[in-house]
């Protein structure tokens, strides 16, 4: 059972503000879904290494040289709030 208190803690870890109604819904839905997912515990995986990249990938080495494809202006143009080339954020210290 994933109760509402646990849901609120998960939401805090995920930096998601959720309403009381959402917390109720997620508590019920995540309990149902995670209960269903529990079934993978029955599979014997002793001695098996986890797999992350599913197809063979060769390592690609490149020269460590500076390239500039975009201007700083391009990169900050999408910011919701900016001051020159800087992002505006709340006080962090």
């Amino acid at each position: 059972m994933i109760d509402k208190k646990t849901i609120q803690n998960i939401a805090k870890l995920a930096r998601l503000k959720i309403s009381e109604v959402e917390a109720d819904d997620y508590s019920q839905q995540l309990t149902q879904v995670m209960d269903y997912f529990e079934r993978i515990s029955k599979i014997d995986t002793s001695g098996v290494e986890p797999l992350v990249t599913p197809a063979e990938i060769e390592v690609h080495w490149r020269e460590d040289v500076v390239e500039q494809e975009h201007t700083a202006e391009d990169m900050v143009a999408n910011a919701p709030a900016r001051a020159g080339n800087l992002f505006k954020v709340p006080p962090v210290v």
Partner: protein
Amino acid sequence: MDLVNSSLTDISNAVKDQKISAEEVASFFFKRMKDLNQSLNAVVFEDENFLSAARVIDSKISKGEELGPLAGVPFGIKDMLCVRNLPATAGSKILQGFVPPYDSTAVAKLKNAGAVILGKLNQDEFAMGSSNETSIQGAVQNPWNNKYVPGGSSGGSAAAQASRMMAATLGTDTGGSIRQPASFCGVVGVKPTYGRVSRYGVIAYASSLDQVGPMTSTVEDAALTLEVISGFDAKDSTSSQRAVPEWTRALSKDLKGIRVGLLKECMRSSLHKDVEKSVENSIDELKKMGAEIVEVSLPLIEYAVPVYYLIAACEASSNLARYDGVKYGYRSDFKNLSSVDLETFYSQTRGEGFGAEVKRRIMMGTHALSSGYYDSYYLKAGKVRRLFVNQYKDAFKQCDVILSPVTAAPAFKLGERIADPLQMYLNDIFTTSTNLAGLPGMSVPFSLSTDGLPIGIQITANHFDEQRMLNVAWALESVAPAKGKRPHVF
């Protein structure tokens, strides 16, 4: 020229031979797209500059310049991929207003081959969904019957392609998001081998599962598009350095000596009778064409949905951490920024910017990765994932391709499953294992249900063996009972 029924190569050749201009082709499809989209809602952003892109092609041709195989061919692009100077929102409010200053590699390759982009296509938010009902831009209708979903998450691509708003489209597939809507809308949809197509400029959902692929009217068009967008890209460290074969040139309907594996577990599960009949008919046709049918088994397939959803949710919770309201996209409306604490800044922005399904999956992933649960969920799922690959390797010792349904039933009705996440996830039983194993898989339209809805057949092949998958699909396409059938919008 009958542009609605022409192949990509026919369009490109006609443009190169100046029988029709790229401008005329683009204008024809742009108008058609605008008209049809009023009801279907498949297109979310139109490229108003399509005419100048088409005129560049025409001017190169008049100067005698060499052009690629998609000269003047109009494309629609799923909103998951960045197209320079067009909005890219992934169907989410959190990316509201984001206009990428660069092209994804797949789109850059299309443009280099002469393609003209007409617009961005609707999708489930962050590609999380099987019905295209979770998009901030609203649900997409299935062109075959407007009460039904087009499938998802590439529902906009499937609906646009089925109604031929453009000549071809791109989608993305993390757990079936190309193949399932392709099946529901009666178009060809290919998910290539993991690493075949660069993911650079593709908005990340679950990086070890995501692949870009074509959604087209025919297998030949899909092979050509895939040839253009495939290949190594230094900007994606997981892209493969293997040479890209000329799939279109080597297409063959000769199935003698081809062993088609029939997935035992699929036929035992409860399939809709029309889907079951479709699979049986497709096997009969393949036999007639000389293929050998062998039964293969993937006993773990019953665990595909939980393993897939755990891995996808964990990767998503990490990938989507980047949306913080600082660099791009949506930021909650704070009156006085200097009095807001950072935690509130992030959580309020993210809480308002993400939709219900995306939040659900971020929560699932965060929970599965959190202290005390990591080993039994994420690590365990990764181990089972290796067992999946091993089972597929065994199966491909006995066969060249595997045939299965795409989904257990044809398209369902709008609103029918959106309130029950687990039922929605269980739709993906036959498609998710392909992504877990990184294999190429595709849906080819085969028949129509008694209700007149399309049913596709799924062909899966071994890593990097797209050729045999495309060959079997090409053969099936040529004998499909649905061949030449069109949705009501035509």
